[in-house]
């Protein structure tokens, strides 16, 4: 297949440059450094998501608090974070804060390996960003639990923390888990943005290879395939988790991954049907 393009006023034909063997080689036999980039991407996503959920919980409770200063702080936090690009936040946390002399991330020596400053900054930025989105998700989840549940907990003598921990949050989890899964899917891909502060994750590892081989097309196909594998594997895990959380309250199981993938429900088998009363 050929493409026509204009070059110095003269039509010329360019042949698409694609080297399949190069592509397959880098896809199936990635270098050690490349795999480390993959591991770093995954680690950043897990760390960013986990800490983000903690920030989100704190901000959600602050938003639901009776104390207005807490509510205002939480509202300001989500307003700023959700109103600015993640890429700007990453550069701000790492480069801008250091340039202004406010805060500089230093490498931390942990014996055999080093916790690099830019990786710390990456985790801080990713989790701060994630926290703002999780706050809204968790708040909505808590609000969608029937208020009668908290009342029943109170009437049994539970304190607010007890009723949250034992009664409300486990039920809010059912509403929170599906969007949380989608958030982690986004997080896996958003980690690529921290390449701008020099974190050698999957994308920057790819770019390094590109500059030494000039095989942009093949290598970006490789990196895209790796991201697709990560998110697909996560999709499988996610549907398992959703089934687990749905089991006690739903009369039937939710759609399986395949069913969701296909976009329709398989008929319920007789022994899956709700018990006759």
């Amino acid at each position, binding site marked *: 297949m050929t493409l026509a393009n204009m070059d110095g006023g003269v039509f010329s034909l360019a042949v698409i440059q694609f080297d399949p063997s190069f592509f397959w080689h880098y896809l199936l036999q990635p270098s050690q450094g490349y795999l480390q980039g993959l591991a770093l991407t995954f680690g950043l996503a897990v760390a960013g998501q986990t800490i983000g959920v903690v920030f989100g919980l704190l901000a959600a409770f602050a938003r639901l608090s009776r104390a207005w200063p807490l509510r205002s702080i939480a509202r300001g936090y989500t307003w700023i974070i959700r109103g600015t690009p993640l890429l700007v936040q990453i550069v701000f946390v790492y480069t801008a804060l250091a340039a202004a002399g406010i805060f500089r991330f230093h490498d931390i020596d942990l014996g055999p390996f080093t916790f690099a400053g830019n990786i710390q900054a990456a985790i801080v930025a990713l989790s701060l960003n994630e926290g703002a989105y999780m706050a809204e998700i968790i708040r909505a989840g808590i609000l969608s639990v029937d208020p009668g549940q908290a*009342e029943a907990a*109170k009437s*049994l*003598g539970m*304190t607010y923390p007890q009723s949250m921990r034992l009664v409300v949050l*486990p*039920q809010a989890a059912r509403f929170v888990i599906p969007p949380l899964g989608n958030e982690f899917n986004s997080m896996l891909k958003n980690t690529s943005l921290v390449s701008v502060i020099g974190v050698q994750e999957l994308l920057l590892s790819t770019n390094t290879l590109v500059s030494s081989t000039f095989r942009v097309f093949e290598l970006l196909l490789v990196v895209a395939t790796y991201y697709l594998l990560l998110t697909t594997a996560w999709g499988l895990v996610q549907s398992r988790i959703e089934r687990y959380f749905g089991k006690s309250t*739903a*009369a039937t199981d939710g759609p399986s991954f395949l069913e969701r993938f296909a976009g329709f429900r398989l008929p319920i088998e007789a022994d899956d049907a709700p018990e006759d*009363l």
Partner: protein
Amino acid sequence: MSGGAPHDLLDAIGGAPPTTSDVVVEARDVHKWFGRLHVLKGVSMSVRRQEVVVVIGASGSGKTTFIRCLNHLERIQKGRISVNGHLIGYREVNGKLVEDKERNIAAQRQEIGMVFQRFNLFPHKTALANVILAPVQVRKMPVAEAVEMGRALLDRVGLAVKADAYPGQLSGGQQQRVAIARALAMKPALMLFDEPTSALDPEMIGEVLEVMKELAREGMTMIVVTHEMGFAREVADRVVMMDDGQIIEEGTPEHFFTSPTHERTKAFLSKIL
């Protein structure tokens, strides 16, 4: 083992719960506003130990709001409520009432059981887990002991075989019986019932009322908001008629069946009897 008539409910929680005073509930001149809406206009009520009081009244009369004030699910703006001799929800500071600390309110609620119209069982927990959750987490009862008590309670309300069922797998009547067992598991000195049969299909009302009647016969102090006049006639010591945020008539069930005096009471009874 299971099934059959409810029996020995209080025996399952180690006998009748201790009450420190003969007057279990003392509510005096209770006022409540929802915004500008004056929903309770000076309600006073005193309930003696082992007494069963049925509260009737049209919807919007304030009866549900009133019993929700008794365990401080609703704040009150004026008046005072004490249960078992303790002021509920408030403490007195220099002659003025200020809202009590959340921890203290939670402690006071332990001695007040409540059964809700919509059951409010915890859907993520089995029937048995619903019953033992608060005894284990709040009363710090050892799990083995709580399980034994929980199974006994479920057995006494006829649901021993449903101990491991989730609320979603139970009928409304079964859920409400679990809810009663759950409230009893805290060994309350007082049980509040907020229209416990109103959300039930007619054929399930009887099984719930049977449990409540048994509880009344065994000497539990109860305040029941209900329209079930048959229940009132059988077990109530006193019926209280509320209208527009006030108690307008009070008397024995017989009085209400034979010679209600207030026009509103007559009109209300003619609709539900």
